């Protein structure tokens, strides 16, 4: 656990980079510090391993004041990943990764064996071990940077804009892999970024800084999106936070419609009747294995000669489906928006149709989620308290 107690960093000349910061990073969690440049996020990060010393307050690492530690010794126990990978150009990949183990006196053989182990962990092929950094792509170099930081198995990992120098596709992959790694390793991670999307994606908690080194809000990503503390945070999160918030709501909460789903061998007239009874213009046609074939319009089904089957209707493509048990409401909404029928297909883990959703069903689910956690509705305190019992009564 890392604890900031009233930490201030003031530079000679009066610039205040960090102003009286109180912050607690629980062990085993990922804390993302995010904010515009000059907000003190990087300074805060670098004070944890004493690259910068605070001018006031103190920082505790597992309850111990870091000012009492020798800087080099302290740093060997804290992994560090830097923006431009910062790999030593004159060392091979394996020797780059083995840096800290060698510094703390492991033998060369043991350090290299550990390096190989880490290369596998971060998804680098073993044949790269003897290459030099210039022979690797930017994304690979950044993986080496992560492996190097993890080499001596430090409990704490500091990451200073680790993915900002790679292209967006590689960045997304690296973020996903960090999340996976962290699920296994449970390091105490402090990650600095200026990218709020990244913060929300990888953080267990996100600390939003405002210029002048103040903490604007510290919360889980979900709660940040649902209830920004003030207009600064709201602006910083961006205009589409309402939609991004849906990433944190599971699609399994949707009440799916399984009435307007028919097999391809159903009589066309039956299928049309199903649609009309449900008050819908479309039915989803699926094959005998419950895999979706496409949308059939009720009017088209009715115009088919009698004796036809639903599968013979003109089928509109169903676009992309969403996994009911794996995806979020955001994926369900996206699929709905892209579907020509304005309705999207929810499937199980094997791709079999469970049911379909619509804007109206999405709306109901989103509102229900807001009522379950009244704060998430983003309403002021008083109103919230007034509304909660009502919502409960309705249910």
């Amino acid at each position, binding site marked *: 656990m890392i604890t900031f107690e009233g930490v201030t960093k003031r530079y000679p000349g009066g610039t205040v980079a960090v102003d009286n910061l109180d912050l607690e990073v629980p062990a085993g969690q990922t804390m993302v510090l995010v904010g515009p440049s000059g907000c003190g996020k990087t300074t805060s990060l670098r004070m944890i391993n004493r690259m910068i010393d605070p001018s006031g307050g103190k920082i505790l690492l597992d309850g111990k004041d870091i000012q009492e530690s020798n800087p080099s*010794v302290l740093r*060997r126990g804290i992994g560090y990943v830097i923006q431009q990978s910062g790999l030593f150009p004159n060392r091979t990949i394996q020797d780059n990764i083995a840096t800290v183990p060698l510094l703390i006196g492991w033998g060369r053989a043991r350090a290299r064996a550990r390096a190989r182990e880490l290369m596998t962990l971060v998804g680098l092929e073993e044949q790269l071990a003897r290459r030099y950094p210039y022979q690797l792509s930017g994304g690979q170099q950044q993986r080496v940077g992560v492996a190097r930081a993890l080499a001596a198995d430090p409990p704490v990992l500091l990451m200073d804009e680790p993915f900002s120098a790679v292209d967006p596709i590689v960045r997304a992959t690296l973020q996903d892999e960090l999340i996976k790694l962290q699920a296994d390793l449970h390091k105490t991670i402090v990650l600095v970024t200026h990218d709020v999307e990244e913060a929300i994606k990888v953080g267990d908690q996100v600390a939003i800084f405002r210029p002048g080194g103040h903490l604007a809000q510290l919360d889980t990503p979900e709660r940040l999106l649902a209830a920004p503390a003030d207009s600064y945070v709201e602006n910083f999160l961006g205009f589409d936070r309402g939609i991004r918030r849906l990433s944190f709501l599971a699609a399994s909460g949707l009440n799916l419609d399984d009435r307007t789903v028919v097999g391809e061998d159903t009589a066309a007239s039956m299928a049309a009747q199903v649609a009309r009874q449900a008050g819908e213009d479309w039915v989803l046609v699926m094959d005998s294995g419950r895999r979706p074939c496409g949308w059939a319009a009720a009017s088209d089904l009715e115009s088919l000669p009698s004796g036809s089957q639903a599968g013979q209707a003109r089928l509109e493509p169903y676009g992309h489906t969403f996994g009911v048990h794996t995806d979020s409401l955001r994926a369900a909404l996206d699929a709905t928006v892209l579907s020509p029928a304005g309705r999207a297909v929810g499937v199980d883990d094997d791709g079999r149709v469970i049911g379909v959703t619509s804007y109206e069903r999405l709306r109901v689910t989103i509102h229900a989620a807001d009522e379950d956690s009244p704060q998430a509705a983003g309403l002021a305190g008083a109103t919230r308290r007034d509304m909660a019992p009502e919502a409960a009564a309705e249910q």
Partner: protein
Amino acid sequence: MTWSWIPQNAAMIRQLTLENAYLGIVPALLGLVISLPLGIACARWKWFYPPVLSAASVLYALPSLALFIVLIPYTGLTDTTVIIPLTLFSLCVLVPNVVDGMRSVPESVRQAATAMGFGALRRLVQVELPIAIPVVIAGLRVAVVSSISLASVGQLIGVSSLGYLFIDGYQRDFPTEIIVGGALIIALALVCDLVLVLARRALTPWQPPSRQREAAEIAARQQPAAAVPGGAR
């Protein structure tokens, strides 16, 4: 051109070539030994660099012959009298190259080393100096080549080198000797230069081949300065 003169005097020519090589290489190496601490200090404490650079330039501006004459009362007509001025001259090339070499270490690498727990000395020896090698060797190549050619001036005070062939050839009005002396100095300089190029390749297997390096440098220049820590310097 009297070709037969060459085999007849082969032993003398070989002797003079070796002496010239000695007078060229030793000052460059001594210059390197002095330049490393000086250049490292200049890279670390920026205020220290301008006075050191000025001093090195002033030394370089002194005529070699004048320096020899000043030194004769102390060191006599020995190799030392030639080696000391040539060593001082080499500083003018070597100190800036050591400084540039230290500055060629990317700021992200320096920070990463510090953050991983390298102390200042260990960082210097294990990270910064190895990365500075290519730039330092580039300076050493210039220093060796210029010492080799300047060493011949020492002949004027009787310190033996290929310069003997110039003076003797001039006095005897024998152009063959002068041409052979000139050709050997050029050949000696080229051989030493080649050895240093090979040494750099052997010492820095981590450097991209030159074409890739140029591309990388162009790419680095095109990056916005703000994206590179310390890039605004």
